């Protein structure tokens, strides 16, 4: 979609089904559960990570100029095993291979680079294309066997010949042994030289070239672990200021830190916190106020946080309350008890901005996902389902009936499927293309192009 159209509001544009990736059967293999989704900086590549430690990268086809009614499709570009399960012998702990986060580096040359992380180890992967192969060696046969030099009678110069495109992924750096607790975030600095990794209690700063050393910049571990009251849940660098980053906590606070202030950023520069509404107090207040994701807007002026029931937009210049709050599924507030019992209350939903920061999106249950238009203040609920399978089928808005009489086409809260949750969503940086991950499928939706 071209710049002129603008990444429009959630309701102004019509979202259409484009593609779905993944197995069809209902029996979900645990290793196939998608755990992270991320577009690269141009939007041409879309990476997913799963619980089995694999990374799958999709590439958008070049737009067919003649058939301009749809944008290019995303097809598998590369698949590789990023992380393997490990065993920490010292602690007798198994380390899951699940990919927690993928972050792309901006492209500097022909190859693509991304960081992928599991609970303990971050890896820098180089994804490169190979479409030529050297042929005509003197001492090697074509199949690689060595020739007996005495049989060589003439010499030739090896040449490169075209071959089928091969995409190779190779680990270039492995950043290990720096996290005692589970890594929940990685974020690349705008200097494109350093990045941070955050676990429950600490944040480390790395240089992309240096793997044997990292710098601890935040440590909230109390001297006495019994005094532990909160953990770090997410962290991100500011998109423009290379000295600024934020981290969110399980208590619903966000701290903005300036690395110029001191080597150890235990003291925040800003603390963003909204006072709790005492009338909403419950057994589970602490759980639902825990922030599961924090994302800066592309402009860097705002940041968005996701807690269990809502999405909040914060102006970096105002610390005492968010400038906007959107209820994602307020009808769940009366169901917190059952959601606690079935562990759904611990689900960590992510959120994302569109390219122009005018719309935000996040997931919910029953394979629903929500978009909020910040300008029109309208919101929409859509469903990722194979039922709307035909490309360019416009998605029908959904509605959940909280209580009372259920209208036609509405779904009652009690019939929501809480096993079908959308935790990970991503928005193309420039166009109205979104990637929505259900448990083991990846849906791609586009706005309707006339």
């Amino acid at each position, binding site marked *: 979609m071209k710049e002129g159209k603008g990444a429009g509001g959630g309701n102004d544009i019509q979202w259409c089904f484009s593609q779905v990736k993944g197995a069809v059967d209902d029996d979900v293999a645990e290793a196939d559960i998608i755990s992270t989704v991320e577009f690269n900086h141009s939007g041409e590549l879309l990476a997913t990570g799963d619980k089995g430690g694999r990374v799958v990268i999709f590439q958008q086809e070049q737009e067919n100029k003649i058939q301009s009614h749809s944008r290019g499709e995303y097809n598998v570009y590369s698949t590789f095993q990023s992380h393997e399960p490990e065993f920490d012998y010292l602690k007798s702990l198994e380390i899951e291979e699940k990919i927690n986060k993928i972050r792309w580096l901006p492209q500097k040359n022909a190859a693509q680079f991304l960081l992928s992380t599991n609970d303990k180890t971050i890896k820098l992967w180089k994804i490169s294309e190979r479409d030529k192969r050297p042929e005509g060696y003197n001492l090697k046969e074509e199949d690689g066997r060595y020739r007996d030099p005495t049989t060589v009678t003439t010499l030739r110069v090896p040449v490169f010949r075209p071959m089928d495109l091969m995409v190779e992924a190779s680990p270039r750096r492995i950043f290990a042994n720096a996290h005692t607790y*589970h890594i929940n975030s990685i974020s690349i600095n705008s200097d494109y030289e350093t990045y941070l990794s955050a676990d429950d*209690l600490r944040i480390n700063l790395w240089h992309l070239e240096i793997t044997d050393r990292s710098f601890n910049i935040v440590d909230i571990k109390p001297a006495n672990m019994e005094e532990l009251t909160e953990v770090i849940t997410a962290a991100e660098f500011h998109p423009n200021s290379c000295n600024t980053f934020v981290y969110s906590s399980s208590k619903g606070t966000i701290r903005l830190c300036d690395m110029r202030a001191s080597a*150890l950023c235990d003291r925040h520069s800003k603390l963003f916190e909204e006072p709790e509404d005492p009338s909403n107090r419950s057994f589970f207040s*602490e759980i639902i106020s825990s922030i599961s994701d924090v994302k800066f807007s592309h402009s860097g002026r705002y940041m968005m946080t996701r807690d269990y029931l809502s999405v909040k937009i914060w102006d970096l210049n105002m610390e005492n309350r968010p400038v906007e709050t959107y209820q994602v599924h307020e009808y769940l507030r009366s169901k917190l008890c059952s959601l606690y019992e079935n562990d759904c209350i611990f689900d960590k939903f992510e959120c994302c901005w569109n390219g122009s920061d005018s719309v935000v999106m996040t997931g919910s249950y029953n394979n629903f996902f929500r978009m909020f238009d910040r300008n029109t203040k309208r919101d929409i609920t859509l469903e990722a389902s194979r039922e709307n399978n035909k490309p360019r089928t416009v998605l029908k808005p959904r509605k959940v009936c909280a209580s009372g009489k259920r209208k036609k086409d509405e779904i009652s809260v009690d019939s929501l499927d809480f096993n079908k949750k959308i935790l990970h969503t991503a928005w193309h940086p420039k166009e109205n293309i979104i990637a929505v991950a259900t448990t083991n499928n990846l849906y791609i939706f586009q706005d309707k192009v006339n």
Partner: protein
Amino acid sequence: MECALDAQSLISISLRKIHSSRTQRGGIKLHKNLLVSYVLRNARQLYLSERYAELYRRQQQQQQQQQQPPHHQHQHLAYAAPGMPASAADFGPLQLGGGGDAEAREPAARHQLHQLHQLHQLHLQQQLHQHQHPAPRGCAAAAAGAPAGGAGALSELPGCAALQPPHGAPHRGQPLEPLQPGPVPLPPPAPSALCPRDPRASAACSAPSAPPGAAPQAAAAASPPASPAPASSPGFYRGAYPTPSDFGVHCSSQTTVLDLDTHVVTTVENGYLHQDCCASAHCPCCGQGAPGPGLASAAGCKRKYYPGQEEDDDDDEDAGDLGAEPPGGAPFAPCKRARFEDFCPDSSPDASNISNLISIFGSGFSGLVSRQPDSSEQPPPLNGQLCAKQALASLGAWTRAIVAF
């Protein structure tokens, strides 16, 4: 919000969750367990407030029947549960039943109330002493005080009044009052896996005068959370006071790990400078006196407790570095290599500290976060389900389990 479950069920569900997290792949999830412990705390608060209310009502009935004024006004326990009248409910253990008749009539209630009150006393004494707050931030034994910065309505009930410690603020060396020993629902904790929670070790730590055998093994009954800091986990304090051998390295701003598998060496540089560390009064290597209380407040010194610097470890080449952390890195992890039994740190967590809950369940959750409960131990620890069920099976046991909070 109405909850379909009562406090007891919530507590039992939460215990189950914590227990089952032991066996989950990937190690203990610190975040999730922290949140579950908040629910536990909240449910416990409600449960205790309800218990207090009920027992208070019984107490009132007794008094009315006896038509005797309460003799002793030692403690003024002001407690109000949500929904209760805000007027203070005065009673103390000695006020229960002015006469033998009442005792005969409600021995169980009196007994339980006594226990609850004892616990309350210990809690508040601790809190008053350490925090020097005239009014407890929370009510009663129910997690006195909210976690730092997170006071909720449940912990600020109207009517909670300042409590006069009956005998003045006790000093920390006061022996733990063992609660009524009774049938112990939980098996004794394993010594190795539970060294931090071993009441013997803790008793020795906190109260040298306390008879080692005073506290029955089951931490639930024996270690009232009122003495959370010393009782629970010397292992956790291994970072608080570096042993002499650490002096040489404690100001180091680096942590180095050797991966035994890949032989990769990684260094994490801590974000503080030597001069920051030594500027603090708590810096032992600069010879500025013994570390004092409130260690957590010295942000610079916090760094010296970075894993690896604290332990004069086994001969592991990697300095047991990050491996020195409790298994899974969770606060509930008993430290298998606790070494600091000799000292009793002064710093005391809030009575509402999360891991108090867990440490109290002691043997019921022995190696709660340990992935490998030593099979060489005593009988396998009960899982959370059994513990809760047993606890719930009888009112007395339940009270003891709750009192142990």
